[in-house]
């Protein structure tokens, strides 16, 4: 314990040096802005900034690159709330309740709360990193394909209840998402599937194109068909209108806490990513809510949990990267590459061999999160003013950022056409009440489920019992079963009764 404190002291001493503070501020500011812009995200920005950091010392270089990464998560919910246009795929879920809040004139409050939620999530995972990084990383990589499969199946089953309305339509969209996720090169055999001979599809459908089409373009189309557009009077934007009420806070904290935990669990697992974290935390909030019907209409829980999960997962993704040298996703792989170029070898020895770097970077994460708080809260007033722009000017500008953002990911016009295609499909889905969120989660989870299912079976030489033989995997499958049973009418009643009893007790404890 004392050791940790000494180390943290060392870390803060490093992170608080003027140079490091500057690069931290630079990184998080850049991150916030690319986060706000739809499509263009942390991966593109970090890849482009990486060569610039070769001229820096390793510590400021890492601090800045990391700042871009978690800074982008703060920004990504802004456009979701204001325009129903997610800045990145993980923020798509924030549209569901953030946009209704904006329509009710509560955009300022939503932006304020998502900023705080991001801070809570980030802080939670940083504390985990400080206290238990090596132990957590060991647990995370002890998850083999069987465990991954089972946890992803649980996530998938939870996904069907993401939206309001018909559960059947939700599940149908999950299945369509699974199908779309299969397009491209099959990881386990190398075959090309559903590519129709198009090179552009060999790497699969672009997640950004899908998310921007289903959420961004579809929303623009649907808005254009409405006759009136709620524009906000600039005079009504006061600082007071951004302050959440006591009731808002009361609903905010528990949801933010749960989101942080779910985000951290998913973030530590290599290969999962923040999209899964935000969607699952939202689904979980809805599952445990006493009145699930409030979701989709501006529920505080619906923005607090996913935003906390988003930042918590991103920050937790550093744990396996720094302590084992195992990057969980493409962004972490680029960061790892950056460290190697600087002659730093992330891995079990990093904490001992280079404590200044490890603790300095960890301390900078928290300082960066404080910067983001200071940066984002005053910006809220500015962002909300976006709503005063008349819609006939706003939507061409939104299309401007959508096309360039999607194009930037692979420098591909094909992806932009795909975005249009998904926009039209998404619009039709909206018209017929087929929800988009389950489709997106099915798309993200499908390839993971297939990969791990097949690998688990190869490892077990075709023995299907591997999924129930391994205790952790069995646990997740049993949880899946409970979720499924709870969806069946009579069983649900029993669950409701049990849940009610539990919530009464928690109320007494409060």
């Amino acid at each position: 314990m004392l050791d940790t404190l000494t180390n943290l002291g060392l870390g803060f001493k490093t992170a608080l040096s003027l140079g490091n503070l500057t690069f931290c501020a630079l990184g998080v500011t850049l991150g916030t802005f690319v986060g706000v812009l739809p499509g263009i995200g942390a991966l593109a920005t970090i890849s482009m900034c990486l060569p610039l950091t070769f001229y820096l010392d390793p510590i400021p270089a890492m601090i800045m690159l990391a700042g871009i990464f978690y800074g982008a998560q703060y920004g990504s919910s802004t456009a979701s709330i204001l325009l129903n246009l997610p800045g990145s795929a993980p923020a798509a879920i924030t549209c569901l309740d953030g946009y209704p809040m904006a329509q009710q004139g509560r955009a300022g409050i939503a932006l304020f709360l998502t900023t705080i939620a991001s801070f809570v999530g980030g802080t939670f995972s940083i504390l985990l990193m400080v206290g238990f990084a090596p132990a957590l990383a060991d647990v995370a990589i002890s998850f083999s394909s069987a465990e991954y499969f089972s946890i992803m199946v649980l996530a998938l089953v939870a996904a069907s209840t993401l939206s309001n309305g018909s559960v059947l339509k939700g599940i149908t969209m999950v299945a369509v998402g699974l199908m779309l996720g299969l397009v491209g090169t099959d990881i386990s055999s190398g075959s090309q599937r559903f590519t129709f001979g198009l090179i552009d599809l060999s790497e699969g459908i672009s997640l950004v194109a899908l998310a921007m089409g289903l959420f961004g373009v579809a929303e623009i189309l649907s808005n254009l068909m409405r006759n009136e557009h709620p524009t906000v009077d600039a005079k009504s934007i006061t600082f007071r209108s951004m302050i959440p009420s006591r009731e808002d806070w009361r609903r905010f904290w528990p949801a933010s806490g749960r989101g942080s935990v779910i985000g951290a669990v998913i973030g530590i697992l290599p290969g999962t990513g923040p999209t899964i974290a935000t969607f699952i935390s939202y689904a979980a909030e809805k599952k445990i809510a006493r009145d699930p019907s409030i979701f989709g209409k501006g529920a505080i829980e619906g923005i607090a949990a996913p935003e906390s999960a988003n930042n918590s997962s991103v920050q937790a993704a550093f744990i396996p990267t720094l302590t084992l040298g195992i990057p969980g996703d493409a962004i972490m792989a680029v960061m790892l590459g950056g460290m190697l170029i600087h002659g730093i070898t992330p891995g079990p020895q990093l904490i001992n061999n280079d404590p200044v770097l490890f603790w300095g970077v960890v301390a900078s994460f928290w300082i960066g999160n404080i910067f983001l708080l200071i940066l984002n809260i005053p910006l809220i007033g500015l962002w909300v003013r976006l709503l005063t722009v008349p819609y006939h000017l706003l939507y061409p500008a939104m299309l401007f950022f959508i096309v360039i953002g999607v194009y930037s990911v692979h420098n591909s016009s094909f992806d932009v056409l795909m975005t249009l295609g998904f926009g039209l499909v998404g619009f039709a889905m909206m018209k017929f009440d087929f929800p988009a969120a389950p489709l997106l989660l099915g798309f993200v989870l499908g390839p993971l489920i297939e990969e791990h299912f097949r690998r688990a079976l190869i490892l077990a030489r075709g023995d299907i019992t591997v999924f129930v033989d391994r205790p952790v995997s069995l646990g997740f499958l049993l949880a899946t079963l409970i979720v499924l049973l709870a969806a069946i009418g009579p069983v649900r009643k029993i669950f409701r009764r049990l849940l009610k009893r539990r919530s009464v007790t928690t109320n007494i404890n409060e």
Partner: protein
Amino acid sequence: MKLNLTRRVFTATATALAMSAALPAVAQTEYPVKPVRIIVPFGPGGLADITMRLAAEKLTEIFGQQFVVENHPGAGGVAAANQLLSSDPDGHTLVVMSNGTTIAVSLFEDLGYDPQTQFAPISTLAWFDLGIFVSPDSEYQTLQELVDYGLANPGYINIGTVNPGSTQNLAAEYFRAATNIDATIIPYKTSPDILAAMIRGELDMAIESPTAFAAALENEQVRALAITGAKRNPSLPDVPTVMEAGIEGYEVSGWNALWTLDGVPDDVIAALHAAIAEIAVMPDIQARFAELNTRAESLTPEEMAARFESDRLIWAQVIEDAGIEKR
């Protein structure tokens, strides 16, 4: 306008021309008259990309014209090949094709291009090994021990590699065929996934490039049993080659080479080859390549064509033996 070559290249070209008497005497072509595009079939940041960018800098210095690297990633190098095929045969568009192409020609039902007839070889540039890795606490101290165990226990050994159809994956198929071990090859998405699986104890061995495992080697998360190249790897001098470890004839080397379109004037190809040959022996290039755990070596167009053919034959056989379905 006179021949737009610097003196250095001019001499190099002259030497090359003098050395290869087989080259027909043709009129000197003006080259390069505009920036030259080098098409890389992989995304930025990979080994092929980095080494080619280093070489492009030198080519720019030598020829006094910009050599610009463009990334056109995509399965089988098709996107990159299309860029070359749609260009004029004037040597202003070059493409990087690797040992991966020698696999792709047999792996794809219809690749859409044939480097052996449609392209003209210029020179190889970067060479790299693969390694056979085990967990540090693995009971196998030598490759022979692993092979013996595998032979005695059919169906026991798990070999991890990245995606099917990659050089690593086919090197594993080749290994299985060469040793007659009944082993299971487990595909993973990325090399960090393999590393995690190794730490978890899921794999008995993995075939991966020492470059990808550089950090893991330093962290002692993996141990190298053998190197697949013809020679030992300078950064792992104590590790024997697979052939030294007793598996006869087993050699897998990765290489990246520069090609252009068939029909490009011979003197242009000779000038480019001479420039690459000169770059490959530059001390700073050698040092940078060594840092990347790769080796710079230029083969002549004839040697390169022969190497392509011999690699192609090996992989065609491996693909057939392993019963891998064509794509």
